[in-house]
Protein backbone atom coordinates (compact mmCIF):
# COMPACT_ATOMS: atom_id res chain seq x y z
CA UNK A 1 0.00 0.00 0.00
CA UNK A 2 2.81 2.41 0.82
CA UNK A 3 4.14 2.93 -2.73
CA UNK A 4 0.58 2.88 -4.16
CA UNK A 5 -0.77 5.64 -1.91
CA UNK A 6 2.49 7.55 -2.43
CA UNK A 7 2.08 7.30 -6.22
CA UNK A 8 -1.54 8.49 -6.05
CA UNK A 9 -0.37 11.45 -3.95
CA UNK A 10 2.40 12.21 -6.47
CA UNK A 11 -0.08 12.29 -9.37
CA UNK A 12 -2.58 14.48 -7.47
CA UNK A 13 0.20 16.85 -6.33
CA UNK A 14 1.44 17.30 -9.93
CA UNK A 15 -2.11 17.81 -11.27
CA UNK A 16 -2.71 20.46 -8.60
CA UNK A 17 0.45 22.34 -9.63
CA UNK A 18 -0.54 22.13 -13.32
CA UNK A 19 -4.18 23.17 -12.76
CA UNK A 20 -3.13 26.20 -10.72
CA UNK A 21 -0.46 27.17 -13.29
CA UNK A 22 2.38 26.90 -10.76
CA UNK A 23 4.26 25.05 -13.52
CA UNK A 24 4.54 28.40 -15.36
CA UNK A 25 7.54 30.32 -13.96
CA UNK A 26 6.10 33.58 -15.34
CA UNK A 27 3.09 33.18 -13.05
CA UNK A 28 5.38 32.87 -10.00
CA UNK A 29 7.52 35.80 -11.15
CA UNK A 30 4.38 37.95 -11.55
CA UNK A 31 3.53 37.25 -7.88
CA UNK A 32 7.05 37.90 -6.61
CA UNK A 33 7.80 40.98 -8.77
CA UNK A 34 6.14 43.87 -6.97
CA UNK A 35 7.19 46.33 -9.67
CA UNK A 36 5.07 44.88 -12.48
CA UNK A 37 1.40 43.90 -12.92
CA UNK A 38 0.99 41.96 -9.67
CA UNK A 39 -0.62 38.50 -9.92
CA UNK A 40 -2.03 37.04 -6.68
CA UNK A 41 -2.47 33.47 -8.04
CA UNK A 42 0.14 31.93 -5.73
CA UNK A 43 -1.70 33.23 -2.66
CA UNK A 44 -4.92 31.50 -3.76
CA UNK A 45 -3.01 28.25 -4.32
CA UNK A 46 -1.47 28.40 -0.84
CA UNK A 47 -4.87 29.26 0.68
CA UNK A 48 -6.57 26.31 -1.07
CA UNK A 49 -3.85 23.88 0.02
CA UNK A 50 -3.73 25.06 3.65
CA UNK A 51 -7.57 25.06 3.93
CA UNK A 52 -7.62 21.38 2.97
CA UNK A 53 -4.48 20.26 4.86
CA UNK A 54 -4.79 22.12 8.19
CA UNK A 55 -7.87 20.26 9.57
CA UNK A 56 -6.36 16.88 8.67
CA UNK A 57 -3.00 17.78 10.21
CA UNK A 58 -4.88 18.70 13.40
CA UNK A 59 -6.81 15.41 13.36
CA UNK A 60 -3.64 13.38 12.62
CA UNK A 61 -2.01 14.86 15.74
CA UNK A 62 -4.60 13.01 17.81
CA UNK A 63 -3.93 9.63 16.19
CA UNK A 64 -1.10 7.38 17.30
CA UNK A 65 -0.21 6.02 13.86
CA UNK A 66 -0.96 6.51 10.16
CA UNK A 67 -2.85 3.93 8.07
CA UNK A 68 0.06 2.18 6.34
CA UNK A 69 3.17 3.05 8.38
CA UNK A 70 4.38 2.43 11.92
CA UNK A 71 4.44 6.03 13.05
CA UNK A 72 4.06 9.68 12.08
CA UNK A 73 7.34 11.36 11.12
CA UNK A 74 6.61 14.82 12.54
CA UNK A 75 9.46 17.35 12.22
CA UNK A 76 11.23 17.49 15.58
CA UNK A 77 13.27 20.69 15.35
CA UNK A 78 11.83 23.74 17.07
CA UNK A 79 14.73 26.22 17.15
CA UNK A 80 14.68 29.33 14.98
CA UNK A 81 18.38 29.06 14.13
CA UNK A 82 20.88 30.37 11.60
CA UNK A 83 20.61 27.40 9.16
CA UNK A 84 16.82 27.85 9.01
CA UNK A 85 16.96 31.58 8.35
CA UNK A 86 20.06 31.47 6.14
CA UNK A 87 18.69 28.56 4.13
CA UNK A 88 15.34 30.28 3.59
CA UNK A 89 17.19 33.45 2.56
CA UNK A 90 19.26 31.60 -0.06
CA UNK A 91 16.26 29.61 -1.30
CA UNK A 92 14.27 32.84 -1.79
CA UNK A 93 17.00 34.37 -3.96
CA UNK A 94 17.07 31.24 -6.16
CA UNK A 95 13.28 31.17 -6.39
CA UNK A 96 13.13 34.86 -7.29
CA UNK A 97 15.77 34.43 -10.01
CA UNK A 98 14.06 31.44 -11.64
CA UNK A 99 10.35 31.38 -10.79
CA UNK A 100 10.88 27.71 -9.94
CA UNK A 101 10.75 25.91 -6.61
CA UNK A 102 11.36 22.17 -6.16
CA UNK A 103 7.84 20.78 -6.82
CA UNK A 104 7.00 22.75 -9.97
CA UNK A 105 10.58 22.24 -11.25
CA UNK A 106 10.32 18.45 -11.04
CA UNK A 107 6.93 18.49 -12.80
CA UNK A 108 8.07 21.00 -15.46
CA UNK A 109 11.13 18.81 -16.12
CA UNK A 110 8.61 16.67 -18.02
CA UNK A 111 8.65 19.26 -20.81
CA UNK A 112 12.23 18.19 -21.53
CA UNK A 113 13.25 21.85 -21.95
CA UNK A 114 17.01 22.16 -21.61
CA UNK A 115 16.92 25.18 -19.23
CA UNK A 116 14.45 23.44 -16.93
CA UNK A 117 16.60 20.29 -16.86
CA UNK A 118 19.67 22.45 -16.11
CA UNK A 119 17.76 24.00 -13.18
CA UNK A 120 16.82 20.56 -11.82
CA UNK A 121 20.39 19.27 -12.27
CA UNK A 122 21.83 22.28 -10.44
CA UNK A 123 19.22 21.93 -7.70
CA UNK A 124 20.07 18.25 -7.14
CA UNK A 125 23.78 19.12 -7.12
CA UNK A 126 23.11 21.75 -4.45
CA UNK A 127 21.08 19.29 -2.36
CA UNK A 128 23.72 16.56 -2.57
CA UNK A 129 26.56 18.99 -1.80
CA UNK A 130 24.80 20.30 1.31
CA UNK A 131 23.95 16.80 2.51
CA UNK A 132 27.57 15.67 2.07
CA UNK A 133 28.80 18.74 4.01
CA UNK A 134 26.38 18.16 6.89
CA UNK A 135 27.40 14.49 7.09
CA UNK A 136 31.04 15.59 7.41
CA UNK A 137 30.14 18.11 10.12
CA UNK A 138 28.22 15.61 12.20
Amino acid at each position, binding site marked *: *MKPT*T*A*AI*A*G*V*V*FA*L*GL*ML*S*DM*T*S*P*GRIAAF*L*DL*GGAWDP*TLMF*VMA*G*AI*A*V*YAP*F*AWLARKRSR*PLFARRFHW*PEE*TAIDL*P*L*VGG*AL*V*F*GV*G*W*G*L*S*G*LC*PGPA*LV*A*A*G*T*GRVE*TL*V*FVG*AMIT*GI*VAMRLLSVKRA
Partner: protein
Amino acid sequence: MTAEAALRALLGGALIGVAAVIVLIANGRIAGISGVLGRALETDDDDGRPFRLGFLVALIATGVIGAQLLPNAFGANIAGTAQLAIGGALVGVGTTLGNGCTSGHGVCGISRGSKRSVVAVMVFMATAMVTATVRGAL
Protein backbone atom coordinates in the same frame (compact mmCIF):
# COMPACT_ATOMS: atom_id res chain seq x y z
CA MET B 1 -6.91 38.21 -12.20
CA THR B 2 -10.09 36.69 -13.62
CA ALA B 3 -12.60 34.77 -11.49
CA GLU B 4 -11.75 31.67 -13.53
CA ALA B 5 -8.02 31.98 -12.71
CA ALA B 6 -8.83 32.46 -9.02
CA LEU B 7 -11.06 29.37 -9.03
CA ARG B 8 -8.42 27.27 -10.80
CA ALA B 9 -5.81 28.45 -8.30
CA LEU B 10 -8.02 27.52 -5.33
CA LEU B 11 -8.91 24.13 -6.84
CA GLY B 12 -5.30 23.40 -7.79
CA GLY B 13 -4.23 24.37 -4.30
CA ALA B 14 -6.92 22.11 -2.83
CA LEU B 15 -5.54 19.21 -4.91
CA ILE B 16 -2.07 19.89 -3.51
CA GLY B 17 -3.66 19.85 -0.05
CA VAL B 18 -5.38 16.51 -0.79
CA ALA B 19 -2.05 15.01 -1.94
CA ALA B 20 -0.35 16.23 1.25
CA VAL B 21 -3.21 14.76 3.34
CA ILE B 22 -2.75 11.35 1.64
CA VAL B 23 0.99 11.47 2.38
CA LEU B 24 0.31 12.30 6.04
CA ILE B 25 -2.63 9.97 6.75
CA ALA B 26 -1.43 6.99 4.69
CA ASN B 27 2.36 7.25 5.04
CA GLY B 28 2.77 9.41 8.14
CA ARG B 29 5.12 11.79 6.33
CA ILE B 30 5.36 15.47 5.45
CA ALA B 31 4.80 16.23 1.74
CA GLY B 32 7.72 18.63 1.40
CA ILE B 33 9.23 18.17 -2.04
CA SER B 34 12.77 19.30 -1.17
CA GLY B 35 12.87 16.94 1.83
CA VAL B 36 11.38 13.99 -0.05
CA LEU B 37 13.83 14.50 -2.92
CA GLY B 38 16.86 15.11 -0.68
CA ARG B 39 16.28 12.01 1.46
CA ALA B 40 15.55 9.89 -1.64
CA LEU B 41 19.08 10.76 -2.85
CA GLU B 42 20.72 9.43 0.31
CA THR B 43 22.19 5.96 0.24
CA ASP B 44 21.47 5.16 3.89
CA ASP B 45 17.76 5.90 3.52
CA ASP B 46 15.43 4.72 6.30
CA ASP B 47 12.19 2.80 5.72
CA GLY B 48 10.81 5.75 3.78
CA ARG B 49 12.31 4.63 0.49
CA PRO B 50 9.18 2.97 -1.03
CA PHE B 51 7.15 6.08 -0.21
CA ARG B 52 9.76 8.52 -1.58
CA LEU B 53 10.38 6.68 -4.83
CA GLY B 54 6.65 6.03 -5.43
CA PHE B 55 5.81 9.69 -4.84
CA LEU B 56 8.66 11.17 -6.91
CA VAL B 57 8.29 8.79 -9.88
CA ALA B 58 4.54 9.53 -10.03
CA LEU B 59 5.12 13.30 -9.71
CA ILE B 60 7.69 13.38 -12.52
CA ALA B 61 5.76 10.92 -14.75
CA THR B 62 2.64 13.10 -14.43
CA GLY B 63 4.77 16.03 -15.62
CA VAL B 64 6.04 14.05 -18.62
CA ILE B 65 2.52 12.97 -19.66
CA GLY B 66 1.06 16.37 -18.79
CA ALA B 67 3.59 18.15 -21.00
CA GLN B 68 2.37 16.05 -23.96
CA LEU B 69 -1.38 16.32 -23.28
CA LEU B 70 -1.57 19.85 -21.82
CA PRO B 71 1.43 21.82 -23.11
CA ASN B 72 -0.35 25.10 -22.24
CA ALA B 73 -0.03 24.28 -18.54
CA PHE B 74 3.71 24.87 -18.85
CA GLY B 75 4.49 28.53 -19.49
CA ALA B 76 7.90 29.62 -20.77
CA ASN B 77 10.92 29.94 -18.50
CA ILE B 78 11.68 33.48 -17.37
CA ALA B 79 15.46 33.25 -17.71
CA GLY B 80 18.23 31.63 -19.71
CA THR B 81 20.36 28.61 -18.89
CA ALA B 82 23.03 30.45 -16.86
CA GLN B 83 20.55 32.22 -14.57
CA LEU B 84 18.52 29.03 -14.10
CA ALA B 85 21.67 27.08 -13.23
CA ILE B 86 22.49 29.64 -10.51
CA GLY B 87 18.85 29.68 -9.37
CA GLY B 88 18.68 25.89 -9.21
CA ALA B 89 21.89 25.64 -7.17
CA LEU B 90 20.64 28.28 -4.70
CA VAL B 91 17.26 26.52 -4.40
CA GLY B 92 18.99 23.18 -3.73
CA VAL B 93 21.44 24.60 -1.17
CA GLY B 94 18.86 26.84 0.52
CA THR B 95 16.08 24.27 0.89
CA THR B 96 18.50 21.67 2.27
CA LEU B 97 20.05 24.10 4.79
CA GLY B 98 16.66 25.56 5.75
CA ASN B 99 14.95 22.17 5.82
CA GLY B 100 12.07 22.92 3.48
CA CYS B 101 10.54 24.74 0.56
CA THR B 102 7.16 26.11 -0.53
CA SER B 103 5.40 22.78 0.12
CA GLY B 104 7.09 21.61 3.33
CA HIS B 105 7.29 24.98 5.14
CA GLY B 106 4.66 26.82 3.08
CA VAL B 107 1.76 24.35 3.02
CA CYS B 108 2.44 21.66 5.65
CA GLY B 109 4.37 23.75 8.20
CA ILE B 110 2.02 26.74 8.23
CA SER B 111 -0.97 24.37 8.48
CA ARG B 112 0.56 22.80 11.61
CA GLY B 113 1.27 26.22 13.08
CA SER B 114 5.03 25.54 13.12
CA LYS B 115 6.95 28.67 14.21
CA ARG B 116 10.01 27.53 12.23
CA SER B 117 7.93 27.28 9.08
CA VAL B 118 6.26 30.66 9.58
CA VAL B 119 9.70 32.29 9.95
CA ALA B 120 11.10 30.38 6.95
CA VAL B 121 8.18 31.41 4.73
CA MET B 122 8.47 35.08 5.75
CA VAL B 123 12.20 35.04 5.00
CA PHE B 124 12.06 33.24 1.65
CA MET B 125 9.03 35.25 0.47
CA ALA B 126 10.88 38.47 1.35
CA THR B 127 14.15 37.57 -0.40
CA ALA B 128 12.28 36.12 -3.39
CA MET B 129 10.24 39.32 -3.74
CA VAL B 130 13.32 41.55 -3.48
CA THR B 131 15.18 39.37 -6.01
CA ALA B 132 12.28 39.18 -8.49
CA THR B 133 11.50 42.90 -8.18
CA VAL B 134 15.14 43.88 -8.79
CA ARG B 135 15.31 41.37 -11.64
CA GLY B 136 12.13 42.82 -13.15
CA ALA B 137 13.49 46.38 -12.95
CA LEU B 138 16.80 45.58 -14.67
